């Protein structure tokens, strides 16, 4: 049986990779996908903790996180598409203002 700390360690590594991706990349779509990596790292940690303590509540929480992630992706991609329609550019360096 794999110790639970392996799972949380992997979760930490994935979370750090996602955070670096958010900070380094310029493409908002890739930044969104890096956020998905971070969310999944947190989900993995939740499931690992739930398995460690033998109850299913961690998995219920992961279920809610998945729902919120789906809603967030839908709205975020709609915002990106709207910005692209107006600006014809997608680099996050140009998007310093919240209004246009």
């Amino acid at each position, binding site marked *: 049986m*794999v110790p639970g700390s392996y799972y949380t360690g992997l979760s930490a590594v994935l979370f750090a990779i996602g955070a670096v991706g958010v900070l*380094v990349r310029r493409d908002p*779509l890739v930044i969104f996908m890096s956020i998905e990596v971070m969310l999944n790292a947190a989900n993995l940690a939740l*499931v690992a903790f739930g*398995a460690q303590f033998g109850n299913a509540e961690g998995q219920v929480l992961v279920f809610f996180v998945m729902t919120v992630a789906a809603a967030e992706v839908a709205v975020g991609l709609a915002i990106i598409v709207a910005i692209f329609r107006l600006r014809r550019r997608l680099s996050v360096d140009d998007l310093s203002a919240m209004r246009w």
Partner: protein
Amino acid sequence: MGTVVFLLVALIAVGGALGLVLRRNPIHGALFLVVNLGSIAVLYLTLGAQFLAVAQVIIYAGAIMVLFVFAIMVLIPGKEETGPDPLRPVRLLALPFGALLLLEVLLFAVSRPAPPARPAAVAGGVQAIGRLLFTDYLFPFELTSVLLLAALVGVLALAKRTEVRGAAGGEPSRRIGEGAEAPVRGAAGGEPSRRIGEGAEAPVRGAAGGEPSRRIGEGANAPEPTRMKR
């Protein structure tokens, strides 16, 4: 055996995440992310969370990634990251920051106090989750539907606003152009003869389309010549 499987899948997961961050092409990044999500689904299976593994594949690798790939296809990004980066020194700060974050999270995640005696079987089947969702977590579960509805309406509003604005901007000029702009546009194009030529062409096309009267009526319409010019 279990450890070998875990290490293999963990390697694939980390490789997928690294591929997403390091590859320039966003579509390659999306496919690497699918690999990452699939390997995490396998990890859920090894943890006894069958329902979440299936949900992960259906919701993440299915719905969300299709949405991402679709957005990538529509927007065709990637041009943003080809030129020199004016903020490169600032961005390179992300690496020490990321290393610090990794250290911190690892310290927190791995060196926790050991859990109490490990329970034998994890109650992680579909039955356990369903029972929890519809008893203890019924209210958050219902709120989820409200959240999804709000996201749906929000996305529709976001997608529709620009269209309405574009139509509002385009409508008046077209109405004005119907009468007054047509000759001006012809002059700007420097092809007065083109309008005459169009008149000559009209019957031919009308015959081909089987609607001669429609073609003549449209001759007075301003947007039509511009569309022809393209």
